């Protein structure tokens, strides 16, 4: 079930001009022998801005070619790590990496705001429904949206939704 999300995330960023060959080929099938990717399969690793991991050199740091954005993980890489987690018998870890792949597109401040919205009695049912919708529509994040919808259902049952109006007394 979680696998379906894989495809929507892979196209999140869309193919770019600089990497036609990579975008055209389907994601490679990895086995645990490919781990660690940084040593055994560095050619598969790119930054979110499309630079190969081998471009992260000291010269590039000093010359100012690299920005903090270049030291982030790409959603494609999280999908590869999810494959490795599945291959080593860790489906929950893989699911976490697939949610994470979706979240790479969400800015830091909004990730924090979404986390806060999921705290107990922080959001109404409508607000959580809206959050799930935003995850799907703005960020193509169906796996994360499903987690939020599941939370909303449990919070309703366990009295953990925010009360719509201030209830003093």
């Amino acid at each position, binding site marked *: 079930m979680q696998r379906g999300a894989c495809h929507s995330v892979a196209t999140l960023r869309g193919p770019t001009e600089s990497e036609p060959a990579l975008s055209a080929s389907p994601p490679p099938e990895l086995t645990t022998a490919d781990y660690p990717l940084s040593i055994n399969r560095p050619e598969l690793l790119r930054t979110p801005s499309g630079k190969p991991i081998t471009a992260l050199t000291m010269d590039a740091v000093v010359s100012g070619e690299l920005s903090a954005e270049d030291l982030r993980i790409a959603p494609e890489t999280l999908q590869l790590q999810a494959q490795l987690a599945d291959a080593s018998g860790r*489906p929950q870890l893989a699911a976490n990496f697939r949610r994470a792949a979706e979240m790479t597109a969400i800015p830091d401040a909004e990730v924090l705001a979404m986390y806060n919205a*999921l705290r107990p009695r922080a959001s109404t049912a409508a607000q959580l429904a809206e959050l799930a919708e935003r995850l799907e529509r703005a960020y193509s994040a169906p796996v994360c949206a499903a987690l939020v919808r599941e939370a909303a259902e449990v919070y309703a049952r366990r009295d953990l939704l925010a009360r719509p109006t201030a209830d003093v007394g």
Partner: protein
Amino acid sequence: MTTTEPRPSIRTELLESRPVNLDGFVEEWPEKGLVAMESDFDPAPSIRVEDGRVVELDGKARADFDFMDTFIANHAIDVASAEASMAIPSAQIARMLIDPGVSRGEVLAVTRGLTPAKVLDVVKLMNVVEIMQGMQKMRARRTPANQGHSTSARDNPIQVAADAAEGALRGFAELETTLGVLRYAPLVAIALQVGAQVGRGGVLTQCALEEATELELGMRGITAYAETISIYGTESVFVDGDDTPWSKAFLASAYASRGIKMRFTSGTGSEVQMGNAEGKSMLYLEIRCILMAKGAGVQGLQNGSISCIGVPGAVPGGIRAVAAENLVASMVDLECASGNDQSFSHSSMRRTARLMPQLLPGTDFVCSGYSAVPNADNMFAGSNFDTEDYDDWNTIQRDLQVDGGLRHVREPEILQARNTAARALQALFAHLDLPAITDEEVEAATYADSSNDYPLRDVLADLKGAQSVMERGITGLDLVRGLETTGFHDVAQSLLNVLRQRVSGDLLQTSAVLTADFTPLSAINDVNDYAGPGTGYRLAGERWEELKKLRHVTSATNPETEVG
């Protein structure tokens, strides 16, 4: 008989004065959850699966699930194998855990389908030696490691850097800091990162803070991992902590989405200490936490009572329960950073005995962590072991031929690492226009023991500097650039290598650490293959030669001299 006045014997007076009698002990009170792992109030194991969905868990129907039951039923338990696994007698599963003829993988195929009450039923059958035997096989990473604390009672960044450098050199694979004054965090986190990379390139660092700030420092690349993500075994206490399993699962993914290693934290005694154990035993509630962590897909867990160790430590069988909770984390395939952190006892004998169930079989991180500063400087409220215990620890490793992750290092190397760390931080602070570090402070850092051995800092200026780190948006990349341009090439390169790892995501896999040559070592490429005597991790070869060295070892050929 010369007197009728009752008085204590001289022996009783002597025993009364022993440190162990300063410790607190209480009777069990199962109705309030003040019981380690054997309570009539814990539920009996049961499961019912309908249409691929758990509809009954440990005697409760789905309609009656609290949010822990729901999360565990939805995410932790493998519904395909659950009914078959649950049908295996608990004694047989307990035997599988200690039988060298049954592989770790075969055990995992069973444990993935167990409910919390069933897991409890299994480990309740095991005595402490059997728990250790189980841990030896079930630990996720083949090679054990250790984690240290580097903090300062004055939040002095120079001290944190120097002690991190020494700690990294002595062998800690991870180093953790926290603060007295929270606003100091950016400077201290930078100091920890720089010191750690001076001591041994590839050591991972973290700064324990409130969730949002901790995540922000991680996102900026100032820290490398996080672990202060607390979870609790009852719904009421979880909510008191202002979180739910869903908010914490979301947070776990948030860390992974930035390429940052992360583990949760839980431990026996936290629910009863926070006043709502709902009448369940400490271990039953902890097993719920462990399965919740498993369901969230987080790679690991720091457990072993942690900051609540006084609670299980006070009841009968409490330390056995603490050993059992570490085993449970490992037997559901999570990285386990196994406690031995918070100050536990006034008695050195008790402190050491409490360590044995983790040190002897080895865990992913034997301590989480060991105080790499004097306990008076430990801002995690002191640890079970501190810098005064380094030589004892090294001797115990050598006596028993076990690897607790540390080693003896010669004085000149330590002085050099401390001095380099302080100088690197001095240069970096100057480069980033942060409050100056004087040569006098560098000299103090080289030879110091505690924060009292350093000149006082201008705290207000430091706090302004810390604020500017946040306001100016300084990142790990700025630290690399600063270290490189001020001539600390090796340190800069080590830090860049650590930062590059977040692009690869290799450290997100279970039990990952970075070796000295920057190779990620995790449960994938360092599989625990223990299968009885002569197999699995053995302290041998170069590493054993290293651990034979102590401060004073007499030469075999010339008794007048010392080697090492």
